[in-house]
């Protein structure tokens, strides 16, 4: 597998605070990786570092040359003073033809939204438009920062299925960030738990058959969710920030 982006011993400091320390990370072509972690665990900083917006205090970030990144930000505040239609937004920063724009919107399940002002979209529509724009660059990797924030559970499930489809159609790698420790995408090849350092990595197990799961999310989600339970009672005895925690302290349902 060819590695698209990797970090070696990456540390990032904001002022005096160490936000990330000694992070080893890599994502290969076609892989779906989900990064989970509580608020303030450095998830967004990791994404910014991977994109190139953060300066590494130590270590480094390597990107494959000519890498095309499709980025879906956590939130996008469009200032009310800026009149911007969906169609115009899709042409940023590279202009695309009407046919390409229509196709991308169609693919993400929001056909015909082109003329609508961006400010007038619902949360779910907005996420899909952001994804459509990210797909227009023919990305090698899609980076999604909390893409389902503000979506209800069926909306989240539908969005996850869409991501999975995109991966299988385009072969793009997917890196997703979530603050939800318990619900991650079942299609994830790897889940990385981040809390200033890489706390642990593992494969999520699909629990779509479990009755508790059905009771919690209903059957309408079509197995898009998996539970990834954490018991944060494990210690970091040797004090090493990059320690991989093993699985003794975790229950992967």
């Amino acid at each position: 597998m060819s590695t698209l982006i990797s970090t070696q011993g990456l540390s990032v400091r904001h002022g005096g605070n160490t936000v990330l320390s000694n992070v080893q990370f890599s994502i290969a072509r076609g892989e779906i990786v989900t990064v989970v972690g509580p608020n303030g665990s450095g998830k967004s900083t990791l994404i910014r570092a991977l994109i190139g917006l953060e300066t590494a205090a130590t270590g480094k970030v390597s990107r494959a040359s000519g890498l095309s990144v499709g980025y879906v930000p956590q939130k996008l505040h469009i200032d009310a003073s800026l009149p911007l239609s969906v169609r115009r937004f899709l042409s940023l920063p590279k202009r695309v033809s009407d046919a390409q724009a229509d196709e991308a919107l169609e693919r993400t399940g929001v056909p015909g939204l082109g003329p609508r002002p961006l400010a007038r979209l619902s949360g779910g529509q907005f996420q899909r438009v952001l994804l459509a724009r990210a797909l227009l660059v023919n990305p090698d990797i899609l980076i999604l920062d909390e893409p389902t924030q503000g979506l209800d559970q069926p909306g989240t499930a539908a969005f996850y299925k869409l991501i999975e489809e995109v991966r299988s159609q385009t072969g793009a790698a997917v890196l997703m960030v979530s603050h939800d420790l318990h619900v991650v995408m079942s299609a994830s090849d790897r889940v990385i738990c981040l809390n200033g350092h890489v706390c642990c990595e593992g494969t999520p197990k699909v629990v779509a058959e479990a009755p508790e799961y059905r009771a919690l999310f209903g059957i309408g989600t079509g197995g898009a969710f998996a539970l990834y339970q954490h018991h944060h009672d494990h210690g970091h005895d040797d004090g090493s920030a990059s320690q991989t925690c093993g699985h003794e302290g975790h229950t992967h349902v």
Partner: protein
Amino acid sequence: MFDDFLVRAAFAGIGLTLATGPLGSFVVWRRMAFFGDATAHAAILGVALSFAFGASVYLGTLGVALAMALTVARLSGRGHAVDTTLGVLAHSALAFGLVAASFQSGLRVDLSAWLFGDILAVSRTDLIVVWGGALAVLALLAWRWQGLLTSTINDELAMASGINPQREQLFLTVALALTVAVSIKIVGALLIAALLIIPAAAARQIARGPEAMAVSATGVGICAVLLGLWASLTFDTPAGPSIVSAGTVLFVASLLLRRRA
């Protein structure tokens, strides 16, 4: 045709709005109004220094405005309280400029011309400078348009597409300093920011896309210049403030025309 001072004034104003329309739109979108003020106020210091050293007023103003704009851009990028920093810089630049101007006996006399502009005294050379500067700003913005717009929406979005948001900000900063430098004779240091913001705010009410807004802002600006000059002549009012007042009238009219876009 340029023998008539009124024709020169009109053309100088129109030339300036070519730059202030698109640039003002960015100032509004990026909420840089105060940033514009700081840069413009620094221009008075530039005028005073130019007189002291016998340099060209345009060059002196450009230099000081650029230094101010770069300082502000740097400081705001570091997470200082932007409002406070800008407030300190903007007003102290103006104060130091006025103090420095008081040492120049010649400058003391026509200080109000630098504060409020004297568009009716525009010479042929001024006209060339204004159009040259405005076209340069316009070309700069047109060249960087897509990148500027992307980084205006979101830094991360720009960076992921290989656009450096800091570099785009730098282009905007240079454009702003250049605009301030060429407009100081027309509307003066105190009213430049108004000419940037008011036409753009009016254009927002009628435009449905960023490009349409930039063009409309220039359109509104041209109307404001012509209306203001007419009012200045008819009612014997100062030209610069009259132009800005006309712009405000157009802005209020645009609120009535408002399309629910």
